[in-house]
């Protein structure tokens, strides 16, 4: 799943560790989500969306919405 977490984080000038602290997860978790190695659960996705005051679908993209729109 693609996401814009890195962009949102750097816009605010936060390090991965700072974001991890705000979400109460490990820095490795943030890195894994940013690099697309790990897809967060729904509760964590909501926590991220709430922190950045965005909708979940604005941050995470499963690639299906684009192909659906194209159909």
């Amino acid at each position, binding site marked *: 799943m693609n996401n814009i977490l890195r962009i949102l984080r750097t816009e605010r000038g936060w390090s991965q560790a700072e974001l991890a602290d705000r979400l109460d997860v490990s820095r*490795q978790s943030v890195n894994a989500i940013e690099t697309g190695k*790990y897809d967060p659960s729904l509760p964590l996705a909501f926590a991220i969306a709430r922190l950045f005051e965005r909708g979940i679908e604005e941050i995470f993209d499963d690639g299906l919405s684009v192909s659906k729109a194209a159909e």
Partner: protein
Amino acid sequence: MATLGFRTANKRYKRLFWPMIAIYVAVIFGAKWLFDEDTAPLWLRIACAIATTAPIIGCIWAGLRMTYETDEYTRARQMRALAEGGAIIACAVFLVGFLQIFEVIGPVDVFWFGPAYFAAFGLASCRTIFGKTV
């Protein structure tokens, strides 16, 4: 067991793990100092074995509790490493067992499978850190 988040789970882990390690070291050295292999009665041998194992059980409990309580990604990584470590040791146990049955090797101290499990867990953890993750 409820998820508490990475920070709280880590704090709770360290609060239990380090005292257990300290007790383990104290018991190991204490037993070595007290224990006379030739004259020690059976009850003392059993007491030493239990006293040395108890803090190890405490450390394992601390690790498991941390795994259950920490954040989801860390938990997934830990569970994977625990499973892979267990699988490696299960394979090793079968191999050593069959080598004994077919009389290739002599008796092997069962004790070493414990430290070997922790080593296998450590290696599996490194693989999940540096390799492709969950």
